[in-house]
């Protein structure tokens, strides 16, 4: 009996050591990039009298707005990710969505990132989401709610990205401490227009994180974005429907838009075992000051007409949200959003969008979602939306599914 088990053991060891000489696992397509497809679709119901997206006190960019009424294909994306070589890794994403019968495809992300710079430095170049705040760099399919917080919708056009460069330095400390600087072309809201010698938005940030015991991690950040806009378009107050991006006939803004952001996230899971149970608390505060001139569409700055008014605006926005996964697959979430603005417009042209002083747009949201696996999620969300003058009840049903290779998620 004893001898037999010894022989079995010896045979097993031989088999294992033979395997040890084997080459790393490779298949024929080993050099192909990881390819992933994320589909994101919604069904939404809003009161018809809500008409169009307006947040009093704010000029909204083309990314603002809710998913279309009824069935809609939301921000879906095709991802490619791979190392280029030993020095660079990269990521590309084409996003496509359907809006009022119009299909649109755009380059959402296309960037390379260094892997081998010394002393904790890293450079990212290409088109990428700014690391402003916490929520800005998060892809739509990992959002905890169907929509972005109001502060992001109003001040960052939901999510700011542009071609640019980022330099970060990770301090050699046990506490996570990251410093970063970004420069962007500034084509997109809150910047806009191309007359910035190709650099219309900059962002500085610092991020800090620590684990607390084996169950909790906190993460905090400060950001300062400074953007220059030249004839930045915004939604008109006409007959536009939700998220109808063709209706950008609102005031044009030329000037500076500076945003300070502070964010704090706390994640908790017993023993760090996220799969069984977890709670995530997230809050951000954004303060924006804008200064410049406003003109109406027929009277853009640079044209020979006298329609421009001087404008200074100060706005605050914050949200607080919590999501709780009480058992595998199931989560609930609550969110509260609030904005305030104080605008001064001096001149003949007085756009209705900015007559919001004293009104505080706010919104309460609740969601429940079910994830059959980590590759599929179905979500039901309710908003009591008082961001406009008429309170609206919004119900949204969303699916998010991912096929193929899928990049690992950041914290």
């Amino acid at each position, binding site marked *: 009996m004893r001898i037999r088990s010894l022989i079995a053991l010896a045979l097993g060891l031989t088999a294992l050591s033979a*395997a040890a000489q084997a080459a790393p696992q490779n298949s024929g397509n080993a050099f192909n990039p990881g390819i992933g497809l994320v589909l994101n679709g919604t069904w939404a119901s809003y009161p018809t009298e809500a008409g169009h997206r307006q947040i009093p006190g704010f000029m909204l960019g083309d990314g603002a707005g809710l998913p279309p009424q009824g069935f809609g294909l939301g921000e879906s994306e095709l991802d490619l990710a791979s190392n280029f070589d030993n020095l660079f890794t990269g990521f590309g994403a084409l996003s496509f969505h359907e809006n009022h019968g119009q299909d649109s495809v755009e380059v959402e992300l296309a960037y390379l990132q260094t892997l081998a710079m010394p002393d904790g430095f890293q450079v990212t170049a290409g088109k990428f989401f700014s690391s402003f705040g916490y929520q800005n760099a998060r892809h739509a399919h990992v959002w905890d709610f169907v929509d972005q917080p109001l502060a992001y919708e109003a001040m960052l056009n939901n999510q700011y990205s542009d071609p640019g460069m980022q330099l970060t330095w*990770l301090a050699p400390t046990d506490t*996570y401490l990251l410093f970063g600087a970004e420069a962007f072309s500034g084509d997109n809201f809150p910047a806009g227009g191309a007359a910035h010698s190709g650099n219309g938005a900059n962002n500085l940030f610092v991020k800090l994180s620590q684990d607390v015991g084996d169950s909790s*991690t906190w993460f905090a950040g400060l950001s300062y974005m400074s953007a220059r806009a030249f004839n930045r378009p915004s939604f008109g107050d006409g007959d536009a429907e939700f998220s109808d991006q063709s209706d950008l006939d609102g005031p044009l803004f030329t000037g500076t838009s500076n945003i300070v952001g502070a964010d704090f996230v706390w994640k908790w899971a017993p023993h760090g075992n*996220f799969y069984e149970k977890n709670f995530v608390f997230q809050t951000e505060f954004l303060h924006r000051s804008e200064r410049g001139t406003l003109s109406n569409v027929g009277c853009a700055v640079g044209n020979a007409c006298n329609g421009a008014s001087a404008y200074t605006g100060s706005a605050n926005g914050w949200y607080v949200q919590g999501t709780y996964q009480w058992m595998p697959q199931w989560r609930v979430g609550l969110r509260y959003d609030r904005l305030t603005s104080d605008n001064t417009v001096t001149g003949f042209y007085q756009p209705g969008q900015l007559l919001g002083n004293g009104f505080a747009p706010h919104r309460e949201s609740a969601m429940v979602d079910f994830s059959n696996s980590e590759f599929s999620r179905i979500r039901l969300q309710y908003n009591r939306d008082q961001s406009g003058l008429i309170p609206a009840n919004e119900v949204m049903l969303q699916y998010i599914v991912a096929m193929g290779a899928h990049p*690992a998620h950041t*914290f």
Partner: protein
Amino acid sequence: MRSLRTLFLILALAASAPAFADLNVFSCEPHWTALVNEIGTSHVNVTTATGAFNDPHFIQARPSLISAMRKADLVVCNGADLEVGWLPVLMQQGARDTVQPGQPGYLEGSQYIQLLQVPSRVDRAQGDIHPYGNPHFQTDPRVITAVAPELAQRMAQLDPANAAEYQKRYADFKTRWDAAVVKWTQEAAPLKGMKLIGYHDGWVYMSNWLGIDMVGFLEPKPGIPPSPSHLADLLATIKSQGVAGIIYTPYEDEQAPEWLSQRGGVPVAQIPDTVGADNDKDLFQFYDLMVNQLLKLHGGGK
């Protein structure tokens, strides 16, 4: 004069501050931490990403781990996509060139063993399967036997100043380890042919080693939680196949295994799949614990 003396005192204190470890190791799982400590003892400083109480598929890419990655001289992981949900983010954001895949500072245990259950067809309709094969291989101690020489060699290569000591420690470990594996294999001989139900399909290496027959899993498909209809099927399996017991890890929910145990009238045991769930402080104590738990199940759970 006094100020000069103060300066020297400060310098002396600074010099006596705890010295940095010779080798900073980033370990994905506690069994690698235990092995690195066996070979490296006081020369190594190890950060461990996961623990016996969390599911290694699903941890968060915590920023503290990025900071640890930035300083790592050696990364040791199971590989075979076990850590695919978080390790790539740490590798990318830690941006440490000497520990990227293909470098001496990156060691995947899966490359030094024969992986089992390599799927012939890869489709996520089958659940969260791993295209390279089952990555939960540390439930067979012979895996440690196979990976340890490579680990010792890498440690010696990355920290030449202590190379001789690493090799000496490895030789000493190997003697003790080989004897222990023989001991466990003999102790566990009665388990051959025992039928068990597991929670996640993560026991194939253990069952292969000890001749245990895993006849079913609480998860209907890998990564999908137990459903009532599937549990009903398992109840029938228990009756028809003569199942000896149900096993689950400390990071899996005990409700479904307990329910099945009561209904099926078979014992249930929580068996950790890596070091550190109980009072086990090293690899030897971990496999002792595992074999003892299995023997207990075999004896009817007493």
